[in-house]
């Protein structure tokens, strides 16, 4: 048996640095060397806002930012935790009053490395100032004041993204059924995918919002969603009965009343506020916090789009949306769900005056084996419309029929279609009408 040498252990002097006794985190009444400032943000959130901008000029700078001595030990030396300040200088020297604000002051945006990096990473035009980019990162739940949060920009961005999405989908796949169209809209421009876009941009969330936080971090709170109008639609008067009596919510009424993804407009946007406030103490990592985080990230992306539009105009925002949202890959084939595909295809062929579709066995292998494969084709007259393979004749026929229907629905005039907003560009070629389908086979 091979022997192994014992590892040498040594304690070096620098490992003791900063290992002196520190009070437990919750104990704020201890002798007082370390006192983390409890943010008075909640108390000051509703304080008068106009005085905010001149505060930083009048207040004096202090050496310590977040760690300050309490009143009794104010004259004593600041606590030295052994940090080499020459090597790790304090990040930013802030007046203590900034902690009173719910979100960072606009002028601090110019000094934030994170914000500058985000601006450069997204290749945003120089016309878009850092202050606006900083404002896109403040959610309505962090700062309720509409002049300082991103809700207005997010609403502009929301309408722009959804408009460009919808016109692209309608021109690219003119035969998509409305339910699939809604699913595609959600998959491109919904909360979850915009959350992923924000994460891919490298946007990090602050642990808690406040005036002292780096303005390059996304700021939102989990315990209350805040008031932000970032959807468009009507609140149905019969909303209470829809759930109670299982009332039908047809596609036409969804187009009329509901939001851009065909979802019901509710008061809380799907976030259970009551449950959120009850489970405040465990406000990390449940379904509600996930929804709130997704919404905050999505609203940030929408606000950036809105900011690009506000500062740089229509063409810039169109190319920005195309680059960041439309360019994402979506497998349209997987969005379909059929109920009775054979009947649907028969109705389609009857409507379009094709011959009745007939399923024919093209080839098979291993009929008597454990893993047979049948290939079935769908013929209308002598024209083949589609084919599918399956392990039984019934499965193969269903698959062939579903593939045929998908081939109908996923008809596309061409890959790079012109959309109506392309006509707004100077010197655009004359408009050629796009293909408009007559409608769905089976109306829902």
């Amino acid at each position, binding site marked *: 048996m091979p022997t192994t040498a014992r590892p040498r252990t040594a304690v070096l002097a620098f490992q003791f640095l900063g290992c002196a006794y520190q009070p437990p985190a919750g104990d704020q009444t201890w002798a007082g060397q370390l006192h983390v400032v409890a943010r008075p943000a909640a108390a000051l959130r509703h304080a008068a806002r106009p005085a905010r901008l001149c505060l930083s000029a009048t207040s004096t700078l202090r050496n310590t930012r977040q760690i300050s001595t309490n009143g009794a030990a104010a004259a004593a030396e600041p606590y030295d935790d052994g940090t080499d300040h020459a090597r790790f200088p304090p990040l930013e020297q802030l007046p203590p009053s900034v902690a009173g604000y719910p979100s960072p002051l606009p002028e601090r945006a110019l000094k934030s490395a994170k914000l500058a990096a985000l601006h450069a990473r997204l290749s945003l035009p120089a016309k878009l100032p850092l202050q606006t980019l900083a404002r896109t990162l403040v959610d309505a739940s962090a700062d309720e004041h509409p002049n300082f949060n991103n809700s207005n920009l997010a609403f502009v961005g929301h309408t722009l993204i959804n408009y460009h999405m919808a016109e692209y989908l309608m021109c690219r796949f003119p035969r998509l059924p409305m339910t699939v169209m809604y699913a595609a809209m959600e998959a491109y421009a919904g909360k979850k995918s915009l959350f992923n876009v924000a994460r891919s941009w490298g946007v990090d969330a602050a642990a808690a919002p406040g005036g002292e936080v780096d303005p390059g971090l996304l700021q939102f709170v989990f315990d209350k969603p805040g008031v932000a109008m970032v959807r468009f639609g009507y609140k149905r008067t019969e909303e209470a009965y829809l759930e109670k009596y299982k009332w039908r919510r047809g596609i036409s009424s969804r187009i009329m009343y509901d939001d851009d993804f065909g979802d019901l407009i509710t008061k809380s946007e799907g976030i259970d506020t009551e449950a959120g406030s009850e489970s405040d103490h465990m406000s990390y990592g449940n379904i509600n916090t996930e929804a709130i985080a997704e919404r905050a990230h999505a609203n940030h992306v929408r606000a950036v789009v809105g900011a690009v539009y506000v500062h740089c105009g229509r063409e810039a925002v169109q190319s920005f949306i195309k680059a960041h949202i439309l360019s994402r890959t979506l497998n349209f084939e997987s969005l379909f769900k059929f109920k009775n595909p054979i009947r649907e295809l028969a109705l389609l062929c009857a409507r379009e005056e*094709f011959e*009745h579709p007939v399923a*024919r066995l093209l*080839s098979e292998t291993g009929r*008597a*084996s454990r893993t047979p494969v049948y290939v079935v084709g769908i013929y209308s007259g002598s024209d*083949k*419309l589609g084919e*599918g393979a399956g392990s039984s004749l019934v499965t193969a026929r269903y698959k062939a029929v579903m593939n*045929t229907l998908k081939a109908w629905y996923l008809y596309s005039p061409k890959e790079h279609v012109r959309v109506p907003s392309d006509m707004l560009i100077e010197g655009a070629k004359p408009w050629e009408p796009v293909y408009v389908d007559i409608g769905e086979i089976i109306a829902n």
Partner: protein
Amino acid sequence: MEARLLRRPAASCCFRLLSTPSSATALTTTTTTGRLFSPASVSLQNTTPGAARHKSTANRTKRALSVAPHTSFISESAGEQANRIIFNPPSSAPSVFNTPFKFLPKSDPRRALNPAALFAKSKTIKYNNTSSDASADAADPSELPVIGKYVGKQHHLTLEDVEEMRRLRREDPVTNTVHALADKFKCSRNFVMMSTTAPREHTERHFNRLDAVKARWGPGRAAAREERKRRLDMLFRGEL
């Protein structure tokens, strides 16, 4: 029967002994069904191990196993050999993003172009965008076996017929079942179910009986039924 053909090489002598009338019938049935269902069955039969490995010499075996090249690679003259397009894509499931010609709208430019007609005379290029297998399309589709019967709409029943059907179903739903009425009036069961209703007591009795049957299912059978339903759902969602 087909499993017997795909035996291991070590059992070849047994196969030779078994090549008596009984297994010969097995062979013929296989080939006939193969000819019906699989257009490529002629070449398949030659390359099955059972048929091909029984040549007397190595040279004959090698020749029997050799597969003819694709038609794209065969050409008569040297000039043609030098200047042509080889179109021999690997076999794969057709994509639903290739719209069949029949599904193209009137305004689509592809309809005017009609590439299938353009390449119809070409020996090397087989333009068929909805097929994985060119040989399957070469066969006449009317010869391929049909799955599922379709009678077509007949519209032969009058209002009086439907009234009569309703009366029969109402008066004696036990004798005049949906199947029986469909057979009697020569219409589909769906039509019978659409146009008639059984008395409530009969329906209740029927469903009670069904519930009693379901209650007798053990855990295995119940789970199997549940899974079957879920598999169908998955199939309709395109996950299978």
